[in-house]
């Protein structure tokens, strides 16, 4: 199987607001909306013409162990 290239979100997310929901464009190339709630972000993304954004927060490194 061919090697795949890592998805590098460092530039896209470098100024992303901490602790807020983020909607990325489907190609992961840009932030289309940010907001305090997931609903707000999804509505804003739809209004921006992004029908199926990828939603996430920028996770703190310390928060990933469960």
């Amino acid at each position, binding site marked *: *199987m061919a090697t795949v290239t890592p*998805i590098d979100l460092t530039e896209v997310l470098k100024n992303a607001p901490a602790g807020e929901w983020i909607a990325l464009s489907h190609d992961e190339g840009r932030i289309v909306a940010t907001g305090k709630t997931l609903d707000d972000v999804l509505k804003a993304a739809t209004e921006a013409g992004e029908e199926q954004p990828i939603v*996430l927060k920028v996770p703190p490194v310390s928060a990933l162990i*469960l």
Partner: protein
Amino acid sequence: MRFPYVVFPAKSDAAFPNRRLCARPLIKVLLRKGPRSLLTYAIVDSGADQCIFPASLATHLGITIPNPNTYVFSGTQDSPQIAYFDTVTATLWNWNPAEAAITFELYAGFCQTLEHVGLGLLGQDGFFSRFTVNFDSRNLQFDVSA
């Protein structure tokens, strides 16, 4: 199916003064419940017992929480955490047109304590129990096969 790691920006701290980024084994996963769907990331986490997502996602998918399907677990916090479970349809794909997406029914939990993380966890029960997963961290990629 082969997936790339996802590289996030990360701040340095006293323990890791040179850290600027953090690569994680994440999958884009489309969650569906009836007519509603949502595309998000989930961490492929062999240390997690269950598959769990932030509670906000349940609300968007039309899943009622709290619900009777409670699961009490503990992580790094002293206090017990509660997830509410329901069955969703999950679809994984690496966006390679030559490969077919993987779709399966997933009994997933939703909890408030993952809200601050904003990502889901694909753990042992429901993900690792269903797929063979091989990590190649050195090359920032991993394989998932049925």
